[in-house]
């Protein structure tokens, strides 16, 4: 599923990062690489952007940017 469709408190594993060149590379360089576990911490009060926890730090992305990222949802409660 797309990262932008994930709900608060859900965990997933990154399968694929799409999107155009510069944005895609930027996302990867921030550590959102294939196989990385991500946790959706929360959405901003206006539902955009969203906050993730990856590799032990907090990162925010716009929903439209998160729509480039495909994840496997994990059914664990974290």
């Amino acid at each position, binding site marked *: 599923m797309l990262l932008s469709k994930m709900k608060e408190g859900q965990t997933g594993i990154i399968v694929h990062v799409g999107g155009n060149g510069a944005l895609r590379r930027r996302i990867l*360089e921030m550590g959102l690489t294939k196989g990385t576990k991500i946790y959706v911490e929360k959405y901003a009060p206006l539902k955009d952007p969203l906050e993730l926890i990856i590799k032990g*730090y907090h990162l925010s992305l716009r929903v439209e940017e998160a729509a480039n990222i495909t994840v496997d949802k994990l059914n664990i409660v974290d």
Partner: protein
Amino acid sequence: MHKKSITIALAGNPNSGKTTIFNNITGTRQKVGNWPGVTVEKKEGSVSKYGHDLKIIDLPGTYSLTPFSIEEIVARDFVIEESPDVVIDIIDASNLERSLYLATQLRELDCKVLFALNMADLATSRGTKIDADKLSELLDVPVVFTIGNKNTGIDSLLKAAIKLAGSKSKISQKRKVKYSNDIENSISKLQIFIEEHIEQTLPYNTRWTTIKLLENDKIVREHIRQKTGNKSLKIFREVETHRKHLLDRFDDDPEIVMTDERYGFIAGIIKEVVTKSKKRRIDTSRNVDLVLTNRFVGFPIFILFIWIMFQTTFVVGSYPMEWLDSGVNWLSTILETSLPDSLFKELLLNGIIAGVGSVIIFLPNILILFLFIAIFEDTGYMARAAFLMDKIMHLIGLHGKSFIPMLMGFGCSVPAIMATRTLESNKDRILTILITPFMSCSAKLPIYILLAGTFFSARAGTVIFLIYITGIILSIITGRLFRSTLFKGADAPFVMELPPYRVPMIKSLIIHMWDRSKMFLKKMGGIILVGSVIVWMLTAFPRNINYSMDYNEEINKINASFTEKQKKAAITKLKLAEQAEKAEKSFMGSIGKAIAPVFAPIGVDWRGSVALLTGFVAKEIVVSTLGILYAAEVTDEPDALKNALLSSEMTSLSALSLMIFVLLYLPCVATIATIRRETGSLKWTLFCIVYSTSIAWAAAFCVYQGGKILGLT
């Protein structure tokens, strides 16, 4: 004994505590400027320690050395062009995995790298233990533990840096990122090809150059083109073959695969050096954030913080502002009485002191405002403000971080425009700078109070509120318009770290605040000085005015005839009339009359034109110019100017039109100087002047002519 000098560059991620360490090393002996050609802050400092002169350069905080942003280009260029003796990579220990990305990139460059493992105490308390010896061994890099905000480990860091700078050993080629076989094959083949085809040595090591070429790095390609001329084509063709081969092999661009593999390499290191305890701990920062960015209370708290910032800036700031103001007045009174009458005295009093004095009184406001910004930035709240506001700002085509500068524009455009430095994308920065002047600054308020108070008495508050709203609406329209025309293309990605909340260090806050205020004083002082001298000259010349009557003789007549009480009033009246006539017949008056036809369609007469022209120096001056031209004493009798305005040809409609014009027209000279500085471009500065003035005229025209058609007066 001659001391050996060593250049040390500090690299690291944003929020890694790099600035704190820099401040701890250099103290207040810092030089703040810009990197050549760009508006990225450059900080330098020097200290003498352990028998060496150490020159410390604070590189911009970056997550990688891929040249996407100005900061990254600046940081990378410094390391490869200036080749500092040592690069200290400051690594946030609680963020080791991501920090190592920059570290691996630094390792690939041929420079002597040293890791400062910062804030390891925090990481330990969160249950992460790092085996520094192992890390040092695996990457073949010296590692030093530091705790920036407690000033520990700094001495051993410097000692290690000096030792590393002095070590003769060649930089080891091992322990760098090993890519997968296919990529390593391409690298070594291409490396041999390049070495065969380029006789002259490349400025940087060939492996790095080869990797960058495979990654399609635009800047390195350009360097190769310049260095090798025609041969570059041959090299690029070979690079293309390898890139294509890798693309086929991995079904993805080589740069993407290599980014992936670097993180893979890092994951391997992490596995060996980090031990995490399973015990759950309370994450204070996370809990604080659950409140501050909460769905329901997040915005109210944000508004409260902003409100406090404004109140403190303008209410608390008004006290020292008054002291400074009376200081300036005191100085001019002293000079007034002690200096003999001369042209120089007039220049000094009415030109320099009046002009510079009118700007220096903003210093307290600016200090306070920057203190708040520093607090927001150092605590980590600034990122949350952007997180909260991004949705709204994105509608105008801007980044969430643009909100703060725009909001500050209601106070003063100068610090507001300087605050756009927090924006990473140049596009966002320029767009924000262009629309910030539409946020009605506090210096314009006295003008609204005078005009609205005079012509709209009971409804003055509503009118002023509507003026502010007009500014906001026009800034939104401008933002959207420019975004779809001048600044076309994808918005800057919002990918932004939300760093853990931290208690700010007083020392950092003060350095932060003072650096920026100093810049305001230095640069603005110069331009304001020139600007006010020019305006003074225009109002003070020509000297030989043909007055309509001989004021001195009239005054003498009055002195001879009237009673004491009548005398005083009559003389004041005559003196004001003389001043008004002098202003009318000065160059400024002539210019005002000459351009009056331009302002006629918006209902502004020559007096208004002159007032608007003098408003170029500082908006507050508009009121005092009107005072002079309408021969009314502004300070002693507040109603005198009101009455004068009411009995003039000015109507409430033309007053409204004038207010709209004041809201939108060209910013004051200090703001223009700041725009010039922060955009680094004369073109954008002129564009801003022309655009704002045209919009102002068009809007005022619509108000005045529209109002006339509707039969309003």
